[in-house]
């Protein structure tokens, strides 16, 4: 069965520092990958998606993610974190031909001023 792993439950970074959130997928076929962000009390907002093509994808709010098939990873990055980035981040994938998303358990990001 496919699964999405986010190994870090909590991450704390200082404002202005760089950020990398890890995501690993296990499904063997070509994955469709997503990163979502959830601010407190809100629903999920799409940050970026990868379907095919260029393995480095740009998203909203200055985020980017890189697909690495050899490592089964789709890590989210931001060069300089802002206090407003404090939120929970979810990685998700969906099988080719299916329309169900499988979510990771999320990474809670705290930003220290």
């Amino acid at each position, binding site marked *: 069965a496919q699964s999405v792993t986010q190994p870090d*439950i909590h991450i704390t970074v200082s404002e202005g520092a760089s950020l990398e959130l890890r995501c690993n997928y296990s499904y063997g076929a070509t994955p*469709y990958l*997503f990163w*979502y962000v959830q601010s407190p*009390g*809100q*629903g*999920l*907002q*799409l940050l970026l*998606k990868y*379907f095919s093509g260029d393995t480095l994808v740009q998203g909203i709010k200055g985020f980017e993610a890189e697909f690495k098939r050899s490592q089964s990873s789709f890590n989210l990055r931001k060069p300089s974190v802002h206090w407003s980035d404090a939120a929970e981040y*979810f990685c998700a994938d*969906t099988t080719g*031909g*299916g*329309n*169900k*998303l499988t*979510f*990771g*358990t*999320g990474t809670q990001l705290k930003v220290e001023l």
Partner: protein
Amino acid sequence: DVKVTQSSRYLVKRTGEKVFLECVQDMDHENMFWYRQDPGLGLRLIYFSYDVKMKEKGDIPEGYSVSREKKERFSLILESASTNQTSMYLCASSLEVMQPQHFGDGTRLSIL
């Protein structure tokens, strides 16, 4: 912009009650989804619908049912609410298979 509206942000019900959670989307999306979100477990799919009157079970359908009489509305029903159904419930929709899902703000449901 796609808008997915969930009828209640907070809801408190008693065990044994029949509970209805409503979700409406305004972009003519084919697919609609219901998830529950619990700390440490991420989002888990309860049911989804890919067309009016069509539904499929997700990963945790037990104790729930759904209704989709109109394309824009997807209802989640707790037939006889129990305390272990206390959770955050999120509704989502997508235009086509493989397209990103758009989420509502969630309903925090407490069963006493």
